[in-house]
Structure formats: C-alpha cells, structure tokens
C-alpha cells in the first residue's frame, strides 16, 4: 500500500542515496582535477635539465637537482633517526609498557604529536638547533623531519607488535630464551612487513613536508653536500618558486610538484600493496 508516509520515506531515502553518491563523486572529481592540473602545468617542463641543473636565477635555464638531492638527504637523515627511536619506542609500548600509567602517558602524547602542526616542530628545531649552532643546515632539516616521522613509526610498530599472537612469545619463553631475544628474533621478524609499511608511510609523509623545513634547512640556490650548510628541498623550492612573480620559476614549481606528488603517491601505493588490506564486507 503506497501511502503518503511510505512515499515520503522512499523519497527521503532516494535523496539520501543520491547525496552520498554525489559526495563520493565530488571527492573523486577533486582528485582527478588536482592530478590533471599537475600534469597539464608540469608535464611540459619535465625534461633532462630538471635532473641535471641546479635551481636557476629568474629568467635563466635550470633544473631542480639540488632540491632533489637535498630532499633525499634530509629524508634519509629523518628516516634513520625516526627508525632508531621509533621502533624501540613502539616495542617498549607494546611489549614492556603495557597498561602502566607511564605507557599511557607516552602513548597519548605520541598520538598528539602524530597530528601536531608540523610548523611548530620547525619552530622547536629552530630554537634548539639552528639558533645555538648559528645557522640553518641539512642536519636541522633532517631532525625536524625525524620529529614528524617518529610518532608515525612508533604508533605503527606498537600496533603491529600487538597483533602478533601471544603464542609466539610463549614459544620463546618455553625455549628458555630471554625476552629481549624473543622480541628481536621472533616478534620483530614476524612483524617485519608491518614495520616496513610503517616506514614507507612515514617516508611518504615527510617527503612532502614543507613547513618544518622553512626555518631549519632554509634552502639554497646551489648544489650543496655539506650537512652543516643551508640546503634546498623540493617542497621548499616549490613554495618559493610558486609564490614568485616569475613565469619560468612557476613552471619549475609545477614540475617539482609532479615529482613530489608522484613520489608520495607511489610510496603510498607500494605500502598499500604490502599491507594488502583484506576485502571486508
């Protein structure tokens, strides 16, 4: 019986389904539009000069090689530092800390740090490294990136270690192995793909970061291999060039944007393939 009430319920439902579908296609459309703008504005400038020449003064030919190497160096510094601190910290939270008050505090603050504004991390590193050492440097930039990456790795390590079945730990105990050996040789090994994924996600996160680098590595026009000197990074060059009034700088900024976005998305996709999220529902 199609009463007025039934019609109204069906109508409202149809509107709701349509709304949800439209919102989904809006989100997908935005992704397509952004990627399209990137390709349209940047693909034309993507040539061999980008990978062989350093950032030019306005009006001259040039590339982005110093920014690319700078980004790689600082991301490497950041990742090494983040792994050295993040994996043990995550291990402590999962295996030793348990539900103790101290573990809860660390866990909570780590989660806050995970989403804290990255520009404040830049300010912090400026205060503790740049100011005392009297200079912007790749080391300071790497330290800032490490602080962005550490919470990601800590949280992910804790999560994957907790997923390991307790029978693994018990088997280590049954063999008379000290707990530290069990963790290093059994638990870490069983969780290795999860930890690797965490590393990739952290790398994807920091390779696109600009804000923490503005006051730490500052940027540089020339190729620089000295870790104690200001160093260019791809996102920072994009920012500087895009905000400039020069057309050729803006073109290079779009090329840089393609490179960074491509690298981040590729890393994310590789990470997702490793996880291979099971198809739910």
């Amino acid at each position, binding site marked *: 019986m199609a009463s007025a009430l039934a019609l109204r319920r*069906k109508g*409202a*439902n149809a509107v*709701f*389904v349509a*709304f*949800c579908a439209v919102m*989904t296609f*809006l*989100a997908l459309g*935005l992704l397509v539009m*952004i990627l399209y703008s*990137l390709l349209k504005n940047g693909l034309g400038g993507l040539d061999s000069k980008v990978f062989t020449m350093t950032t030019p003064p306005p009006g001259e030919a040039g590339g982005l090689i110093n920014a690319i190497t700078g980004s790689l160096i600082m991301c490497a510094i950041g990742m090494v530092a983040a792994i050295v*601190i*993040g*994996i*043990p*910290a995550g*291990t*402590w*939270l999962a295996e*030793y*800390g348990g539900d103790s008050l101290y573990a809860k505090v*660390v866990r*909570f*603050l780590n989660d*806050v*740090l*995970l*989403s*804290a*504004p*990255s*520009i*404040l*991390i830049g300010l*912090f590193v400026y*205060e503790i490294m740049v100011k005392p050492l009297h200079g912007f440097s790749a080391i300071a930039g790497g330290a800032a990136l490490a602080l962005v990456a*550490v919470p990601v790795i800590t949280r992910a390590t804790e999560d994957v270690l907790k997923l390991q079945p307790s029978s693994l*730990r018990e088997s280590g105990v049954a063999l*008379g192995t000290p*707990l*530290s050996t*069990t963790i*290093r040789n059994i638990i870490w090994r069983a969780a290795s793909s999860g930890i690797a994924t965490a590393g990739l*996600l952290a790398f994807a996160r920091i*390779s*696109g970061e*600009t*804000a923490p680098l503005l*006051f730490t590595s500052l940027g540089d026009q020339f190729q620089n291999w000295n870790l104690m000197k200001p160093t260019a990074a791809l996102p920072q060059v*994009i920012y500087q060039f*895009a905000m400039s009034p020069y057309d050729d700088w803006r073109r290079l*900024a779009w090329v840089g944007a393609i490179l960074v*976005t491509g690298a*981040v*998305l590729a890393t*994310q996709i590789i990470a997702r393939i490793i996880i291979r999220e099971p198809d*739910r*529902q």
Partner: protein
Amino acid sequence: MTISAAPFISTAIGPPRRGGLDQLFKMLCFSAATALLAALTGVIVSLAIGGWPAFKAFGWRFFTNTTWNPVTDVFGGLGPIVGTLVTACLSLLFALPTAFGVSIFLVEFAPRAIRQPIATAIQLLAGIPSVVYGMWGLFVFAPFFAAHVQLPLAMAATPGSLLDKLTSGVPNGANIFTASIILAIMILPYMAAIFRELLLSVPTQLRESAYGMGATSLEAVWKVLLPFIRRSAVGAVMLGLGRALGETMAVTFIIGNSHELPKSLFDSGSTIASTIANEFTEATSAMHYSALIALGLVLFMITFVVLGIARVLLGALKTY
C-alpha cells in the same frame, strides 16, 4: 627440622633473564619512549621560553588586540587567532557532510567491486602534499572561484544587504572562504577513512535488525548506525579539526595574508600557522620574533586540547 624449598625450582614467573643484555635492551626501548616524551615537553618549553617576552610585554592584550605592526613593535594576535578558528570551523562545515556521504556510500551503497578502489583513490587525496594543494588553490581554484562565484555574487548583492556584507572583498579568490575549502579537501580523506572504519565496525546483527524492521537505508543509517558510532565519530571530527587548525602551507598560499580581523567571508585574513610561515625568517626585531613564537604556543595549546579530546573519544582506533 626446617623445610627449605628445593634450590633448583625457580619461583620467578615469566621468561628467563639473561642478566645484562636483556636489561640493556629493555632500557634502550624505555629510553626511546622517554625521548618521545622529552620531545613533546621540549616543544612546549621552548615555545614558552621563546614567546615569554611577548606575553610579558603585551599581557592579555596579546589576545585581544588586532594591531600587528612590526614597525612600531606592537603585536596583538587576535587577527591570526580568529582567522585560525574561523577557517578550521568553516572547513569542518564543508568536510563533515562530504566525509559522511563518502563513507556511507562506500559501506552501504556502492557495488562491492568498486568499494576498495574508490576508498583507495580517496585516500590518495591524503597523500598529495600540502604545498601542492596550495599551488592548486592559488593558480587553479582561486581564479575559478573569483570569476564564477565571487564576481556574480558581488553583482547580484544589493549594497548594504546581508549577502553584500558576507561577500564583500577583493574579487581575487584569495580569502578565508577559499582557504577553508582547500582545508576541507585536505581533511576530507582522514575523516572519511575513520568514518568508514567505524561504520564497518558496527555489528552485522544491528544493521540486519534495522533492515528487518523495515527501515529504509536512511533510517538505518540515521537511527541505528550513527548513534552506535557517535562517540568515536565526534573523535574523528575533532581529529579533522586539529589537522585543519595547524595546516600551514596550503593556507599560506591562498588566505591573502592580512592581519586584520576578517570583515566578511570573502575577505583576506591570516592564520597563526600562515603568519609564522610568512614572517619568521624575516622577523625584524626580537619582539617580532618572540610574538611569532608566542602565537605558535597559542596554536599548540589549541591543537593539544582538540587532539587530546579526539584521542580520548577515539580510543585505540588506528588513525595514522
């Protein structure tokens, strides 16, 4: 005669210990966790020390004064503080319905085969770097917005009407409204992913019983699923808000960077993060520098509270 315990039975419970190395490993892990704690404390302490001269010089006026003048060395942070709150809340207003629509579509309505691909594609939005959003906003979205929304609205609005007041401003597309839209696109994937996770966590029986009662999808979602995930969903919203508050690069590109209180939706403004990004390396005096760090501390406190609430509400849900 006394009975002593047999010496070869160990009364210790737990894994055997191998003295030094085992303890050393534990200590290493513990110090790494403590280093994290120290880092966060360090951020607060260094911001407080750096910002102290500004707080001391201006007192409460730092929070109520809109004058931000490096020439006369008078700094009031009200403009950037209000700009931060307004853009973050506006962006939430745009992102919340979209994220809900997306997550519900993915969990309830979309054909099975395309669920995972669409979810992955929307997650890619989270991978696009902030600075690229900024460029896209400045070079693509702002001109489009100025030509197709701002100008027609300015033509249509009667001078003096409410619409005119809300939409007055230089029609170049760089204003707090467009900045909020870009922010909304950036926080959308995070919120949608958590909502989807939450909707998937609703027990099947609950969903089935709603449909078994004859509920339409709308009724099942609105009256059964949403109430079930309400607490964590609020947490997800707070997490999105926290991200929007601290987002720097994209906003710096498109907000117009003026320290006045925004007079309309289409007026240029600034946020705390954009002000710091723009001025920190070019700070003209010790007081200017200190005022910027003081603003940083204010931002940290706001996000700390918002993110803290989010974490408490979300519990142990994975969100990185």
